[in-house]
């Protein structure tokens, strides 16, 4: 999950198991609302990988990933922006 990560801060995201919707981890739970997403530092990656694993095992989410952020807290990669905003056409 964290193999090729660049940058210093991230959101933890995944797809909801039952609906497939894009969800973000807010510190307690998973929500479609990105503005509630918890900002994670590089040093915390391992801890949040374990959290993601726990929710995966509980069949809440699938396909967890870290979303790289710019310095101003916005999402960096187009792929992740599309996941957040939906299709671009």
């Amino acid at each position: 999950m964290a193999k090729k990560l660049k940058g210093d801060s991230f959101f933890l995201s995944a797809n909801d198991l039952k609906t497939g919707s894009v969800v973000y981890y807010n510190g307690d739970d998973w929500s479609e609302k990105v503005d509630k997403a918890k900002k994670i530092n590089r040093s915390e990656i391992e801890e949040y990988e374990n959290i993601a694993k726990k929710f995966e095992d509980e069949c809440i989410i699938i396909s967890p990933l870290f979303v790289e952020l710019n310095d101003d807290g916005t999402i960096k990669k187009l792929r992740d922006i599309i996941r957040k905003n939906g299709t671009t056409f």
Partner: protein
Amino acid sequence: MYQYSDKDKQIVKNRTREFLSQVKRRIDGNLTEEEFKPLRLMNGLYLQLHAYMLRVAIPYGELSHIQLNKLAEISEKYDKGYGHFTTRQNIQFNWPKLEDVPKILNELADVEMHAIQTSGNCIRNISCDHLAGINNEEVEDPRPWCEIIRKWSTFHPEFSYLPRKFKIAVIASEKDRAAMKVHDIGLKLIKKRNETGFEVYVGGGQGRSPFIAKKINNFVKKRDLLNYLEAILSIYNEMGRRDNIYKARIKILINELGEEKLKSLIESKFKKFADKNLLLEEDEIKKIKNYFKLPINNPIKSSIPVKKNKEYNIWLNQNVIKHKLAGYSIIMVSLKHYNQPPGDATAEQMKKLSIIAKQYSHGEIRVTHEQNLVLPHIKNSDLFSVWNKLSALKLATPNIGLITDTICCPGMDYCALATARSIPISQKISQHFKDQSIQDKIGNIKIKISGCINACGHHHVGNIGILGLDRNGEESYQISLGGSADEKTSIGKIVGPSFSEKELIKAIQTIIETFEKNKKNNEDFLSVFNRVGIDPFKKDLYDKSNP
């Protein structure tokens, strides 16, 4: 059309029940994703960027009006009100919820449809000429052969875990409308000394390493077809590489072993199988052929309405083809209305088209690998009425075969494997070249766009192929020229360094200008490219002294 036997119905219903229980076990936590993933893929269910995606099989691209109406209902009830027709003549729903998928499969089963073998390392949906049975050039209708192969390949116990996915296409005329030579196996029905049989091509494919299939047999008798296919698949299953996903397709095997070696291995395997249990008896073939009798038998006297309506006349000229029976026409229904994602159809379009098909086309619809639809049997005298109805649905855009009739995969707007977007590129092309007189002036041309090297958008065989790449986090588009998926199949040549999204349309415009500059008489793009080669295009695109 083929109709399910009781046994077929039972198989599909059982499979649906089985998947319902698997989904329940997954949601209840009794199956991990690792355990569940191969099961969902066997039922056509992927996980994309935003949601699950369900790919539903449309065997050899043939649909009844009842099935099309059901697809519309499913898209409304369980999805976002549209579906996407693919380059394998299937349909994809982009937003189903996991818990709804068994219900969708159940509803599909009611109309004799399913999602089996639309994914995974098995024999996929058999593709076919969308004009099968209704054109004058063919040796015979290839659809019954697609059905015979479908029956043999569905749940084939030995070929459910092949080294990689496996694609077969069947055509029956010199004209190739099914991209036959970029399939793992391409079959072409031919006549030799009064007997009909198959030319067999093996090892075509696109993706990372594109190859054109090689002819490995000049004539396989009809009765031997399944034993011969069984021989090819057995060799591939035994010898295809399982250690490297990029080298696992049969195209790599044939290139590593050499054509002659593979041919002799297949021949000796075939000798063992020949005259054994897969031998096709004449009455079995006849039984299947009976399902594909045309709903119309005789030519009729029916003329095309003459109207002084410019749009109608342009459409007649561009989207309507002669049927093999006099008095009838074939309508190509464009799913490339300007600015729409290629291949997408809304629930309303599907519903109303199913009514049109019922009323005017004996209830039949076909899907083309170029992501358009076909109304195969329209009485000439009905053409104006049908045009009016299609126009109201934005399904009569007169651009079949023209520059705005692009083939395009879902790209990064949906696909988890994508390196760039493809739909917005096709929209820009469609916007830029929308003017009908410009399109007519350019003439026949195929632009094909893929969002990654997997080439679902067939970019390798586009006259202009566009491949979306990721260059340090920026979308970038590599252009290849001179590809073709027809009877003169060729793989396009990369023209040079890639272009940013912003530069791309200008680059396409330059390519078109180079073509027009070099065009003689009525030559189309491919003829010009084949005559002048890639250099003039390169020069105009990259020569900095060009303004």
